[in-house]
């Protein structure tokens, strides 16, 4: 039962992950791509968290939390570099 539920949840999450991937593929604006990137990054960390809870594996869970929290600071940095690039 647990295994079937896990499969269903993960497949649903992978299908959700495909939405921003398609968006990043077809959109030409760089800020839309940055949005898709941050969306995908958050989604993947949440997926890792779900897997870690279902498998009862704390090591993976810690990695997911670190990616989720440090990732946002990194995106801010990248967005600032991109903004400077457009201005000059």
């Amino acid at each position: 039962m647990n295994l079937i539920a896990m499969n269903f949840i993960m497949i649903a999450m992978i299908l959700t992950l495909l939405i921003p991937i398609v968006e990043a593929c077809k959109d030409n604006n760089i800020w839309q791509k940055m949005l898709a990137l941050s969306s995908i990054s958050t989604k993947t960390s949440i997926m890792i968290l779900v897997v870690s809870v279902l498998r009862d594996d704390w090591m993976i869970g810690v990695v997911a939390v670190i990616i989720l929290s440090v990732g946002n600071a990194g995106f801010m940095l990248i967005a600032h570099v991109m903004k400077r690039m457009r201005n000059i």
Partner: protein
Amino acid sequence: MTDIYIYLIIALLPLTACMVIFQVNPYHALVIRGILGGVAAMLYAILGAADVALTEALVGTMLAITLYAIAVRSAMVMRVGVLTEELKQVDENILNEGKAQQLFSQLMTDLQKVFRQYHMRIELISYKDMDDLDRALVEQEIHTTCIRQAPLEQDDRDQAEIQPYQTKTRIKRLYNIMKNELSSSETILTYFNVANPEEKHS
């Protein structure tokens, strides 16, 4: 391992990798490289390599993209040397709308339009006089100079007003791009060979 979702996640990795490969704009490719990093980190974590996933997310995605963004930004630029008074006149142009200065702005807009197709930027660098400008071109500080051509005689003034600017570049590739695609009649293009200054084309 009977879990079907692992195979689906593994399939995402070549999908995003192909997206990176087929992207032509370097800035967009960098962002998609971030997406590839996120998917790869998830795959590594789910397959059980927590340390590899952490390294991929922090170094592979954040640090690599930031460093490459700075590298691409510094590399894909054409530095154009102009005289200081030219830039000053362009600033004053907003007030009194001089015709010659309008041509300069028009020329810069055309250049930007041409080089945007190649994902390059134009950077204006001002020099005090002609000697400084020529020295900077020979010493490879700038790629191109853009100067106003001195009017030859009073009678030729009409003709000089048609093509008042002379653009000289020392990079053959930039010369070819500008020759083929710069349609504006506001400038005369010249190729300047630094290694052999005698050889000139126009």
